[in-house]
């Protein structure tokens, strides 16, 4: 897969209209009594993808995952896996395996027996089972822990057992529910890359549910952002971050400064937006399909804003001024909260390029904020 991605001729399947989706979710709705957990979701996932469902708690992402696993049946709509309608097929007959958030390792079985459990259900020959179990334990670097019981392992090791147990059956689809949620930060960062490598090597299609946007960004080939039971945007991590289509997505992924405004001047290749709370005119170097005079929003990421004590050469557009209210020194970057003259607080991050800067910006300084015409994202809703 990595090879394919590096290849110039590689066309991602989701941009290829002829590509056949591997998982087809069609107008799926799931209700629990009156509560609509998943609301009319349609989604295509392609073979070998590492697809992330991202959303806050209660957004329906886990319910969608459980419907793929077969633990819940859709109230309406259908799910196709590799062309087969999954309706009414119980979890034990689906070519789908799941890694549970709690790992759900069988406490009374050794690591080896946990991993072998799924294969034994297929009535495979004994030596075949032990060969595949050993291979899989080798792959997740747990060979020397084969005889241990789950409670004798660390959190990271347990996570790998859970992964091995789900992968060893070579499912068509591997579902991962918050796979890194129980690990500490350092281990999580390391495991993220291991997970991607493992997906590359096994070629299994992964669907990951997570509430952690950073996790989704590093893992996913594509992300589906969910809110209140609906999928609000599907795209690659870059698309989701740089080209959010709604205020919700812009706000949910990373941090963002949001300015409300109206179009004052427009053409095919530019638009000028008067933003009262930004106290300036925002110039965007592309056209926008919006009715004149309608309210719209401009989202600008904190790292795309420049901060300086001197006014920039052209301060007529994309430039505003304010007082530094708070500074957070993070080591690699510093975060500035700048209070504009109108009262709105704008967040700016700047990389700390030098170990010791002479003219550091400090509290109560008057600063100028300016940004490139391509930095702002216009959002209509």
């Amino acid at each position, binding site marked *: 897969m990595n090879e394919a991605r590096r290849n110039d001729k590689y066309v991602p399947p989701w941009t290829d209209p002829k590509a056949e989706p591997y998982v087809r979710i069609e107008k799926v709705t799931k209700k629990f009594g009156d509560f609509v957990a998943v609301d009319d979701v349609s989604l295509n996932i392609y073979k070998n993808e590492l697809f992330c469902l991202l959303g806050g708690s209660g957004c329906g992402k886990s319910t969608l995952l459980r419907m793929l696993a077969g633990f819940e049946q859709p109230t309406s709509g259908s799910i196709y896996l590799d062309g087969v309608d999954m309706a009414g097929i119980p979890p*034990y007959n689906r070519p789908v395996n799941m890694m549970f958030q709690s790992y759900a390792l069988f406490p009374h079985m050794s690591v080896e027996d946990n991993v072998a459990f799924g294969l034994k259900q297929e009535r495979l020959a004994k030596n075949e089972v032990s060969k595949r179990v050993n291979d899989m334990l080798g792959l997740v670097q747990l060979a020397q822990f084969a005889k241990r019981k789950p409670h004798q392992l660390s959190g990271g090791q347990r996570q790998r057992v859970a992964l091995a147990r789900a992968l060893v059956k070579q499912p068509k689809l591997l579902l991962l529910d918050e796979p890194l949620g129980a690990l500490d930060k350092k281990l999580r960062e390391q495991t993220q890359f291991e997970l991607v490598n493992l997906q590359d090597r096994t070629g299994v299609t992964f669907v990951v549910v997570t509430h952690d946007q950073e996790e989704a960004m590093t893992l996913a080939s594509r992300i589906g952002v969910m809110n209140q039971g609906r999928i609000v945007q599907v795209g690659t991590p870059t698309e989701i971050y740089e080209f959010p289509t709604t205020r919700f997505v812009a706000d949910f992924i990373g941090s963002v400064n949001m300015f409300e405004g109206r179009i004052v001047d427009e053409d095919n290749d530019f638009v000028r937006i008067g933003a009262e709370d930004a106290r300036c005119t925002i110039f965007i170097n592309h056209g926008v399909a919006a009715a004149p005079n309608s309210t719209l929003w401009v989202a600008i990421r904190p790292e795309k804003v420049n901060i300086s004590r001197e006014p920039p050469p052209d301060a007529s557009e994309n430039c505003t001024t304010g007082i530094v209210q708070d500074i957070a020194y993070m080591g690699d970057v510093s975060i500035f909260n700048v209070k504009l003259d109108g009262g709105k607080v704008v967040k700016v991050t700047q990389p700390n390029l030098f170990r010791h800067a002479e003219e550091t910006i400090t509290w109560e300084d008057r600063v100028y904020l300016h940004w490139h015409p391509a930095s702002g994202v216009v959002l209509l809703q």
Partner: protein
Amino acid sequence: MTRIAYVPLGHRLAHMFEPLARQLVRLPPVRWLLTQVSRLGFSGKSLVISVPYVWLLLFFLVPFVIVLKISFAEQVVAQPPYTALLGWVDEKFLTLKLNIANYLFIVRDSLYWKAYLNSMKVAAISTLLCLLVGYPMAYGIARTSPAWRNVLLMLVILPFWTSFLLRVYAWIGILKNNGIINNILMSLGIIDSPIVMMQTPFAVYVGIVYSYLPFMVMPLYATLEKMDLTLLEAAYDLGCRPFKAFLRITLPLSIPGIVAGCMLVFIPAVGEFVIPELLGGPNTLMIGKVLWDEFFSNRAWPVASAVAIAILLLLVIPIMIFQHYQARDAEAGR
């Protein structure tokens, strides 16, 4: 008298009943009591631990020593009907006379062996029946909605609100020849003459299973209730059908509950006296009954004491061996 066998490993058994104890501590009156105790300046922990130890010392160890003492005495026609172990010779030397004739007697007389084996058989079969009836009950209660759970648990405990003896007498009314079952079957024309159920082993089993069922259900419920249900989902997900998942996951994980429940039923059932006396026939040979006869009919206190000590040892030794291995496994596991 019939339940001596309960107590010997109090502290060792305690961890078997841990699930049950945990449920118990959650009850509001228990919590209130613990709060009050800690307010008085006692550390709750040491107090809670010391209470059962003091209890065991007073009500188990002291009577046990007395019974042990009597078992080494000789029967005499006197008040009390046995000789003293310690005596003074020439009012100078303290002598200790141990008489092992009682033990030799119960080993040589086949009546005791047969009674003992039969008690074990009856207790074992009753325990198995309790498990077969109690497991589905506990499973059902553990898997229903929390609101129903409390109602069903209440129903399991409800019989304790009436006297044990009354409940056993009620079974006589149900089982006897002109009792409820026979009357119904005869009025429906299914049978012509009453089925003899009273004074049969069947009646004894019914009585024991009925009386001890809650002791089986409660520990089973406690282990089944705290089981993580995602383990079952994981099993289904890995291709395991529900019934097989029960055998491979639920059943092994409920072993602590099964062991606790079986001990709670088996141990008192071995020494059971009232149920075989009331429901069983006159020739129902159970060790509890033999003990009773020795004590009250023959006034052979030393022999009866020897029988009691023998039951106790025969029950305690296998349990201790079992406990030893279980503790070792638990240590190896952790």
